[in-house]
């Protein structure tokens, strides 16, 4: 297992492009660092409900994907709600434990009885992602774990802290969260920090057969952008409403929660712009972030993006006037004159859509035929190119 290091010379570590390719064709390890807060007590449900902008229709064994809003109804963090019997584990990407706990206390109904435990201090997440992550998880935790559905959450007693016979089960329990924001199979393993090194050793042993590499969070964040997932580290998205960000499926308008009134007002006023994906020409460098024009008229703002090693072109996110916030519109110009075209996310044909645990394995991946990852089989998308570098079709 290759670990990234800040101290090694850039030439001695696999490039970010290779890690990006490994994520899209194999399996990678990464270490997300979201807020992890456990909510317990008689009114735990009411407390979580007061922060979560989506109806809390979720039961033990499932995950609910929503977000944390600020007081102005703008995006503040990505949120997964994981109920465990009468308790809830909240996983909030974009906040730290103290910040999430403060928001929960502020949102809690008056007189609510509850306890908050910042389990990020005692527990951490190791995450696996990629079209063969299911296979590695199956070897690590048993075949039944390989096929758990997206947005599931199951206990992993084998990764709990050791205990004496008759001793009560440890709290919080080790959990496997089937989630992910890359469009690939994704698993987050929630384990006590004392168990992390044992899990790392096991991953190194099992992972060797999968050429497992550890990647920086930036690789995951960029993959999220390619696949249309919200990420709080994408420049320019925080503070924007779910209406602008096309995340209205994550909120309800008929309930009270943090930022609800402000969000209703923003909905009533109407948002002038909408988040839209854009791509540049093949082999062109990244354009300047900032104003976007079309026919000489200001039509939006390019927020973030990068040159995708798989697509061979710049991919980015922009907020664009609603009348033009549709895919396949060309003639958009960044401040430095580079031309862009709008697109629909996901921009890739993720291999995870086509890998079938009943028929495919990582070991035989070269013999299997798949739909090209890049629509049309363009740069980096053809067989062999994904593994071999930046060769052009």
């Amino acid at each position, binding site marked *: 297992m290759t670990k990234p290091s800040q101290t090694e010379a850039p030439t001695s570590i696999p490039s970010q492009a290779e890690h990006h390719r490994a994520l899209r064709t194999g399996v990678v390890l990464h270490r997300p660092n979201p807020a992890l807060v456990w909510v317990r007590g008689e009114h735990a449900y009411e407390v979580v409900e007061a922060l979560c902008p989506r109806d809390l229709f979720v039961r033990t064994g499932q995950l609910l994907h929503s977000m944390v809003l600020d007081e102005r109804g703008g995006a503040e963090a990505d949120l997964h709600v994981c109920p465990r019997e009468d308790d809830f584990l909240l996983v909030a990407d974009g906040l730290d434990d103290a910040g999430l706990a403060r928001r929960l206390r502020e949102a809690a109904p008056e007189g609510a009885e509850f306890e908050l435990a910042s389990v990020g201090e005692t527990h951490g997440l190791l995450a696996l992602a990629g079209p063969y992550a299911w296979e590695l998880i199956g070897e690590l935790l048993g075949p039944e774990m390989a096929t758990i559905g997206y*947005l599931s959450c199951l206990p992993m007693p084998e990764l709990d802290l050791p205990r004496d016979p008759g001793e009560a089960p440890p709290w919080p329990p080790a959990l496997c969260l089937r989630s992910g924001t890359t469009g690939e199979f994704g698993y987050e393993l929630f384990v006590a920090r004392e168990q992390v090194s044992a899990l790392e050793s096991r991953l190194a042993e099992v992972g060797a057969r999968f050429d497992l590499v550890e990647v920086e969070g930036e690789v995951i964040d960029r993959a999220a952008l390619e696949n*249309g997932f919200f990420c709080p580290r994408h420049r320019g998205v925080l503070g924007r409403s779910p209406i602008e960000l096309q995340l209205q*499926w994550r909120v309800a308008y008929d309930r009270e929660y943090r930022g609800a009134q402000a969000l209703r007002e923003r909905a009533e006023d109407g948002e002038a712009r909408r988040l839209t994906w854009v791509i540049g020409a093949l082999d062109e460098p990244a354009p300047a972030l900032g104003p976007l024009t079309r026919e000489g008229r200001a039509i939006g703002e390019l927020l973030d993006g990068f040159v995708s090693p798989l697509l061979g072109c710049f991919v980015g996110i922009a907020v664009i006037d609603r*009348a033009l916030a549709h895919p396949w519109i060309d003639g958009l110009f960044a401040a430095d004159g580079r031309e862009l075209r709008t697109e629909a996310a996901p921009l890739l044909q993720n291999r995870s859509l086509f890998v079938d645990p009943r028929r495919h394995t990582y070991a035989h991946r070269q013999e299997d035929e798949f739909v090209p990852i890049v629509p049309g089989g363009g740069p980096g998308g053809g067989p062999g190119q994904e593994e071999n570098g930046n060769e052009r079709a």
Partner: protein
Amino acid sequence: MDEVQLAAYVARREALLDTIREVLVTDLRVPLPREQIDPDTPLFGTGLALDSIDAVDLIVAIERKTGVRMSDDAAGRLGLRTVNMAINYLLAAQGETP
């Protein structure tokens, strides 16, 4: 694409967006108001969280409303990832390409 072509193109997309929202709310009983179904909302897994049975109903309803047959192959599967991807599929079936 000049301004006239652009206006016509956007109108075609908006019309298909309305059609798919109608299918989702009326035929599939998605419990959201139409305007809350954004164009890039995922249809399966996350987002509207439709399942494989919904997929059949969605394909049948879209075919009935638009006359376009959604194939049961990779292209059809990719065309159902989001509302906008479905619109792309329908436009491509009518000969429109980026």
